[in-house]
């Protein structure tokens, strides 16, 4: 018997009322009015994977171009656009949004509530992300794709060396996507602070929720930096300010400082959610509580702080004072400590548990292997003399693909495999899963390991070709072959997911025997997540307390959730969440008009703001709420705000 049936039998919940209150809007127009976190989260994930495929195609094009010396597949200009778009897509349109999507989908379920704290803002964030991505790709297909690298260093990206609109498209795409990331960060932090199920005190928060909490704080303090500098760059390019113009007292180095003040935390913004996923997978398949919960949480918090003190290690080759370089070398080496603590905790959990090597755990094993190699090359280039040798070479390309794909994408695939049954109600195929894992793992290493050697031999990044005399041809060809194996691995994974979502065997509510409360809901979960909000009495409630007491007295006839306090999750008050509405979509449209117009003419900023006034008023205008006396008699459920 599912928990939902039990609750109905016990008469604590009016399921039909809950169903009516939380029902998603229907029809084509309904798609634009959606505010449920499950739907918005899934949209983020699907959209991000579409951009992942686009970024992957760009990667393959680059690999084909580099497969042999003096290849003529791509001309230098197209090559520049493609590597810039590849980097920008993977960082801004795939890695961050997919993690946000996982957070939006999972966090409310994992903390035991029914939606995020600001559902309309959540929808708005998704549309901003979508429009930003479409805007960038509109540029790419019109042959005005950005071509100054995903970090757009000035003065190359400035008005003098990059006329036209290419970098403006890039800079404005940043504004779109960062806005989206920021609203998700705010709503997740507030959801985690104020909407946890009663009893889920700080020391019982699931690891992935901790990870999203820390990641969101990093987003909140890192993303404003890139919004500020991309805005300043836009002004330099369009209205003649001089922020990065040395002729009038500006400083191109200012760009690098602000950009990397964002750019380094960005790496951890991608990586920290993956750490959270790993802890759940390791715990579930080791069949024992995670070892070192406190150490893991504290290590992640430490990572969040130290992540802000590393940015200069991207700038060792710019001639900074030696004291500064030494400081950032020390900080860069220091961050290996909390990462090491976490890896040892996971290994110890597996060691002392009764591990079963299911596919998600296989991915985690792959993660540990790849990430440790990436971490080791990271410690190497944290040292200034070595960094100066390999700066701007393929050694760096190898390093950051080892940490980003190894540290984030591989655990993400494991995480998707792990939560796929919850999201769709169906299991992915294990045999195909094994195949896709090994293709990915082997293909990845064949692609990127040779790049270490190429880099040490001096092959520079961001060049569209090289001479045959350099002797780099063989390793490059090997890397290109590897890239195709890797791509086939990803394709097999996607096909597996697509086919399983249609024909996979039914999953049941807790197919892996996992420990956290999201597994107590049916798969896929109903729109309200939980028929009854559970009371949490332990860190692994599904293992130690499978039949918990529940929260009663929430009004099922409207979108009501429980607000609890931050430290101990004691109930404070009930809270009515808004239902479906078109205003977030319309606001995203008017904001987009303003943003895109600004690329061409600054006054559009004003027109965009003026236009946005209408949807904003519509959004905040209070609607009639059901009167309590009508509610009592059961006929007041229509007027939910």
């Amino acid at each position, binding site marked *: 018997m599912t928990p939902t049936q039990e609750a109905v039998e016990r008469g604590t919940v009016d399921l039909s009322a809950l169903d009516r209150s939380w029902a998603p809007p229907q029809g084509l127009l309904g798609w634009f009015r959606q505010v449920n976190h499950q739907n918005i989260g899934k949209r983020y994930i699907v959209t991000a994977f579409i951009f992942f495929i686009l970024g992957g195609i760009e990667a393959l094009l680059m690999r084909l171009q580099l497969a042999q010396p003096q290849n003529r597949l791509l001309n230098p200009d197209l090559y520049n656009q493609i590597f810039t778009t590849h980097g920008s897509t993977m960082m801004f349109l795939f890695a961050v949004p997919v993690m946000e999507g996982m957070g939006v989908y999972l966090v409310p379920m994992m903390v035991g509530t029914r939606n995020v704290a600001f559902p309309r803002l959540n929808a708005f964030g998704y549309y901003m992300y979508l429009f930003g991505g479409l805007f960038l790709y509109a540029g790419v297909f019109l042959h005005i794709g950005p071509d100054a690298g995903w970090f757009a260093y000035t003065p190359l990206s400035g008005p003098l060396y990059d006329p036209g609109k290419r970098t403006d498209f890039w800079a404005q795409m940043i504004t779109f996507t960062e806005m989206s990331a920021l609203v998700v960060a705010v709503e997740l932090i507030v959801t985690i602070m104020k909407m946890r199920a009663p009893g889920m005190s700080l020391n019982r928060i699931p690891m992935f929720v901790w990870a999203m909490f820390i990641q969101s704080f990093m987003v909140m303090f890192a993303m*404003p930096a890139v919004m500020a500098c991309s805005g300043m760059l836009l002004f330099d390019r369009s209205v003649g300010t001089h922020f990065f113009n040395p002729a009038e007292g500006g400083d191109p180095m200012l760009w690098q400082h602000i950009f990397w003040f964002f750019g380094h935390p960005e790496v951890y913004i991608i990586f920290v959610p993956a750490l959270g996923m790993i802890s759940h997978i390791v715990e579930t398949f080791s069949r024992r509580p995670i070892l070192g919960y406190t150490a893991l949480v504290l290590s992640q918090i430490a990572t969040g702080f130290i992540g802000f003190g590393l940015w200069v290690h991207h700038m060792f080759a710019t001639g900074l004072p030696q004291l500064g370089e030494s400081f950032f070398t020390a900080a860069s080496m220091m961050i290996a400590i909390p990462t090491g603590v976490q890896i040892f905790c996971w290994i110890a959990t597996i060691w002392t548990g009764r591990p079963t090597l299911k596919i998600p755990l296989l991915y985690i094993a792959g993660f540990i292997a790849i990430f440790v190699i990436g971490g080791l090359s990271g410690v190497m280039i944290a040292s200034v003399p070595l960094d100066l040798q390999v700066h701007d070479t393929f050694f760096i390309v190898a390093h950051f693909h080892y940490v980003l794909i190894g540290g984030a994408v591989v655990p993400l695939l494991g995480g998707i495999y792990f939560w796929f049954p919850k999201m769709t109600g169906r299991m992915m195929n294990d045999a195909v899963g094994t195949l896709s894992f090994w293709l990915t793992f082997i293909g990845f290493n064949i692609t990127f390991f040779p790049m270490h050697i190429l880099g040490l031999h001096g092959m520079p990044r961001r060049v569209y070709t090289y001479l045959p005399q350099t002797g780099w041809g063989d390793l490059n060809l090997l890397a290109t072959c590897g890239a195709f194996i890797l791509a086939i691995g990803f394709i097999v994974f996607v096909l597996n997911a697509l086919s399983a979502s249609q024909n996979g065997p039914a999953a049941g509510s807790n197919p892996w025997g996992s420990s956290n409360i999201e597994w107590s809901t049916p798969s896929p979960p109903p729109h309200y997540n939980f028929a009854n909000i559970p009371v949490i009495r332990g860190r692994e409630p599904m293992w130690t307390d499978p039949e918990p007491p529940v*929260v009663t007295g929430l009004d099922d006839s409207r979108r009501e959730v429980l607000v609890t306090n931050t430290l101990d999750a004691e109930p404070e008050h009930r809270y009515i969440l808004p239902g479906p509405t078109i205003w977030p979509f319309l606001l995203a449209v008017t904001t987009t008009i303003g943003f895109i117009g600004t690329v061409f003419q600054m006054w559009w900023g004003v027109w965009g703001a003026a236009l946005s006034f209408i949807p904003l*008023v519509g959004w905040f205008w209070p609607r009639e709420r059901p009167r309590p006396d009508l509610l009592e008699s059961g006929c007041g459920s229509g007027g939910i705000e």
Partner: protein
Amino acid sequence: MTAEGNINVAPLPTIGFGSRAPLWWGQVYMMCIEGTIFVILVASYFFVRIGFTHWPPPSVIPPALGLPTFNILLLLASVIPMYLAGEAALKGERGKVIVNMMLNIVMALGFLFIRLIEFNRFSFKWTTDIYGSFVWIIVGLHTMHAIADTVQSMVVLLIVLLKRVDEKQLLGIKIDGLYWYFVVGTWVPLYLLVYVYPNLQK
């Protein structure tokens, strides 16, 4: 499932104020984000300033102190009616809410008008040099915030005028006030930076 240990939340209120309200926290974090943007601009200002022996560059006359000083006093004073509006809202005194909100909006509009004159009196443009660029972006960004919250206050006032004031609108008034405190609070260090600091350097 045991009925024992169930928590009945029906007696709890449907709204919380201050740090109990999710909306309050949302606003606080919005302020963190916007505050971070200002901090980054200020840090950039000093980063660039290090490269100069004379600041502002000798070719530029820094803005005079008189009018901006009057204006910041006006801005600081506008906090009082905003605070009183919030207090009146908590007590449910609709009349006082309306009067104080109106007073706040009039002061805010006055502030914005004088701000316009400040802009006109700058002896430099954003295109003049790096100093001009920074002054215009910092004052401009702050002005955008001030305009946004003034418009927001007007909408809140309109809602109070047209609709029955219930708990949710009270929360709206408090949150609107919180944002105005942010607009006023950020201007104090920015005023010192933009107007006082360059005059001290002479």
